[in-house]
């Protein structure tokens, strides 16, 4: 994002709307710190500038990736859904992405509210790759990996900041505790935060297989429930 200095009146109204705290007043003009701005468009959508001085210039690689990972209105070509994530458990009754005995783990770096550089994303991806996990193929972080077995990301992206990025993979349920223990070990070495989540297919009676497991992190009292109402249009099939 940039500020048209000829239009800016230096009112400072835009500063508080930036989720990354990347806008500051220098003299009587607002400026955007390009190393901190993640192209999320929050300032534009807020319509907080009385003179429309904020604007997004055309973006090229790798800066355009910041937009894909930060602005929920953008649609990444890998996922074809708006936002930085995937359908994950939301359509599981149709896709069968997480069958019984299997779990989905998502590690969202930079959330809440801190942002992340890709070098932190790679640290986590490399750590979980040691367990031989299968990174979610439709996830935009996976699509960027130069080595999907090792969880490596391109050198030119290491410094790029995004609002958040999700390392996402599926794994046998029995292996979840060991992977979470490892995440607990590496967490203090990170320069950003991550929000952690775990998705599982319910048992036939609707109970959760995770309730019986001993995990290194407490389970939340709230979360997401797929109601199982979806089905494939052509076949009517559910998983």
């Amino acid at each position: 994002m940039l500020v048209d200095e000829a239009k800016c009146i230096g009112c400072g109204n835009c500063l508080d709307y930036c989720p990354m705290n990347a806008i500051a007043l220098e003299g009587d003009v607002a400026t955007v710190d390009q190393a901190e701005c993640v192209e999320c468009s929050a300032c534009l959508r807020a319509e907080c500038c009385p003179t429309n001085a904020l604007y997004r210039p055309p973006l090229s690689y790798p800066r355009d990736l910041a937009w894909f990972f930060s602005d929920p209105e953008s649609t990444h070509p890998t996922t074809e859904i708006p936002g930085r994530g995937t359908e994950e458990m939301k359509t599981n009754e149709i896709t069968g992405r997480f069958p019984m005995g299997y779990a989905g783990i998502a590690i969202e770096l930079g959330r809440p509210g801190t942002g992340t550089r890709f070098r932190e994303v790679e640290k986590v991806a490399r750590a979980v790759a040691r367990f031989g996990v299968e990174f979610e193929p439709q996830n935009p972080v996976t699509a960027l990996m130069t080595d999907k077995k090792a969880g490596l990301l391109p050198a030119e992206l290491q410094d790029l900041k995004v609002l958040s990025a999700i390392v996402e993979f599926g794994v046998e349920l029995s292996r979840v505790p060991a992977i979470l223990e490892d995440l607990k070990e590496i967490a203090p070495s990170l320069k950003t935060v991550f929000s952690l989540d775990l998705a599982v297919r319910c048992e036939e009676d609707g109970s959760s297989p995770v309730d019986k497991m001993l995990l290194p992190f407490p389970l939340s009292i709230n979360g997401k429930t797929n109601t199982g109402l979806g089905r494939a249009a052509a076949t009517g099939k559910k998983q």
Partner: protein
Amino acid sequence: MTHTLHRQGTQEDLTHDYTVLAIPARGYNRAGSGEKLQAIKEIFLQHHPVNMGDIKRGNMYNPGLDHVTATTQDGTVVHAVFQDQETLLEVLRDLKEADTGLSIVVSGLFGHVHDTCQKAGIKRHTIEYSLGVHGATGLLPEPPLLEVSTMCGHGMVSFNLIRRMAREIEAGLRTAEDAGHELARQCLCGVFNPSRAADLLNRLVRR
């Protein structure tokens, strides 16, 4: 896209916060989904949500309900926020009866949602837990701010804007309700609960 997960708060607070979303599955039922998603928006509206949105059209506070409901594209995701279990039950019953074949996901207290699904004759299929926030947690603000900001999972509601709303309420420049709406404007999808935000902001101001 875990944008309705990781909402922080106490059991008491979360009793007034249930998000429902509808999403088509790529490669299975996306073609022609716009019409079905439009029907789901109409069901949501009948039950007076405190927020409602379409990721490709914005939310009911920005750019406004008329824009959100005017058209619905194939492949979008639609959301609504309800404040109590009784309304959630009515919404789920209507969605089950409408039988659109699209996936319906509810975010909220697991116990309440499970109980409500059972009353609606729905057997939950898959669940997703938050296992908390870890890493450099020293970068995060105080918990009451996080309870407000995490209602927008895409991170569009800045910590500084929440602080400013609290200051403006304290100074008598805004009501808490108005501040809740201003924060809700930032959350593109319409999953932010402005009513709960107003309560949390009032508590912040009292502190």
